[in-house]
């Protein structure tokens, strides 16, 4: 290694170690601090004490977060799947294609807080959904829709033309091809994209705090009831200085759920890597 190259290598290696090390620092910090806070009671009890959250547990927040994420990913994945199929297989007009792409790219760039503003003014007030888990779920669905749609579209476009032409020349219609060829081929990738997107939805606090998230609410019984969510709970515990211990506990639970989703999403990649040296 000669003299002029040495600083460059130092720089690249140090930056890499720093970047990779960051994750372990974050995980280590949260996991160490949360030791002793995490008990079965903390996970399964309702928040209690005065101010609320200074004692008790976070069960309604866990349930609320999971439910709102489920609603969001359900809506977003259905819409994203069909619009990706439409744009790749059925859209013949180049102009419509361009316009759709443009709108989706625009929404992908809009910050989550502005989407929350839209959810509040349109879904909560104009459509009279009220501060509810449905309004929050729909807002989050709009947030993760572009993420799923763009990736699905890319996936479908990479399908070899040969395959589609072969099935078309055999007189098989598109719908049959999509259900019997494309879906089995891409099922794993599709699920992993949706899982990754739901991780983003679960961690987002800004859109839900405007559209239906409360500091203290029971586990939601219907789509119209307000709910608690982990990121917002964590924010209030810290922001209003209610309880640092419980904040660490909440952060631990949230982080574990997100890591779990990330791991699920990575399974297809891991399986593929195993075959390689």
């Amino acid at each position, binding site marked *: *290694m*000669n003299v*002029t190259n*040495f600083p460059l290598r130092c*720089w*690249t290696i140090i*930056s*890499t170690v720093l*970047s*990779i090390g*960051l*994750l372990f620092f*974050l995980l280590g910090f*949260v996991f160490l601090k949360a030791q002793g806070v995490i008990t079965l009671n903390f996970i399964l009890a309702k928040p209690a004490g005065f101010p609320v959250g200074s004692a008790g547990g976070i069960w309604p927040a866990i349930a609320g977060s999971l439910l709102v994420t489920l609603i969001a990913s359900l809506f977003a994945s*259905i*819409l994203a799947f*069909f*619009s990706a*199929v*439409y744009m790749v297989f*059925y859209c013949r007009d180049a102009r419509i294609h361009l316009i*759709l792409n443009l*709108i989706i790219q*625009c*929404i992908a*760039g*809009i*910050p*989550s*807080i*502005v989407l929350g503003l*839209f959810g509040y*003014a349109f879904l909560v*007030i104009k459509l009279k959904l009220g501060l509810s888990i449905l309004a929050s779920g729909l807002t989050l669905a*709009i947030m993760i829709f572009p993420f799923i*749609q763009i990736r699905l579209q890319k996936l479908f476009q990479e399908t070899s033309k040969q395959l589609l032409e072969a099935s078309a020349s055999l007189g098989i*219609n*598109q*719908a049959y091809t999509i259900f019997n060829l494309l879906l089995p081929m891409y099922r794993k990738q599709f699920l992993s994209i949706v899982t990754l997107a739901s*991780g*983003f939805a679960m*961690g*987002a*606090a*800004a859109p839900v*705090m*405007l559209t239906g998230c409360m500091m203290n609410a029971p586990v939601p019984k219907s789509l119209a009831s307000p709910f608690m969510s982990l*990121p*917002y709970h*964590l*924010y209030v515990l810290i*922001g209003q200085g209610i309880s640092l211990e419980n*904040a660490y506990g909440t*952060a631990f639970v*949230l*982080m574990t759920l*997100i890591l779990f989703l990330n791991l699920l999403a*990575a399974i297809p990649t891991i399986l593929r*890597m195993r075959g*390689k040296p």
Partner: protein
Amino acid sequence: MNQTLEKLFILLSTIFTVISAVLLFLVIIFIAKESMLIFQEVNFFDFICGLTWNPLAGEPRVGILPMILATFYVSIVAILISLPIGIGCALELAALENERLKSFCTSILGVLAGIPSVIYGLIGLLVVVKFLEKKFMLAAGESILSGGIVLAVMVLPYIVSSAAETMEKSYVQYKETSLALGVSKSYMLRALILPNAKGAILTSMILAFSRAMGETMAVMMVIGNSPILPKLLGKGETIPALIALEIGTAGLGSLHYHALFTAGFVLMIFLIFLNALFYTTQKV
């Protein structure tokens, strides 16, 4: 039978596409419509360039210049910190021959991008803010600098993945030739890959900048939130933080409410512009 299924499927996908397109279009239209109302009462330039934010006073003043400046300020600080580390890491990853190690590093960066912003905010508050208080003897460590440091960590994965993609392509392209000429890997990185990646670095910067500008929670937790002109070690308030903190208490249809929508609209326009810039630089 099969034909009806096909027709049904086409119909279904068309309907769902129309629903999504209308919904997404509605977001832009609705925010724009709600925010235009304010200009009946306030002059456009007074709004953008006004220095005072006090929508609840007897004579309400809504100027968002301090917030606009703070939003840019934290984002620029974040990029300045994050870019050197991100590009270094991208160079190393692009030239990494070990496939397993490379995919391990890529997935670590993916996880880093997926960590919720409130957790970054929590750690920022407990580590970065505390550190700044000790280091600079500040009364309160909540400042533009701490916001920038937290954001730098958050945008790092975006910079690395965006830059590494292009660098990897040019590495693969020139690898054989460089090997044949007996050029060392380090020299190749320095003299060939890095100068070649100027466009990619610009693209990753724009992407990171737009991420940083739109970030709400993490910044809000460490920046102090007071609507004054930002200084590096002083408090500030970004546009997303302003909206998140005040929309709950703003009366429906009031000047305050519309002012917050307009602030959101201004942010949205900046970001759509950055996004457009991102796609044009990416194509070149």
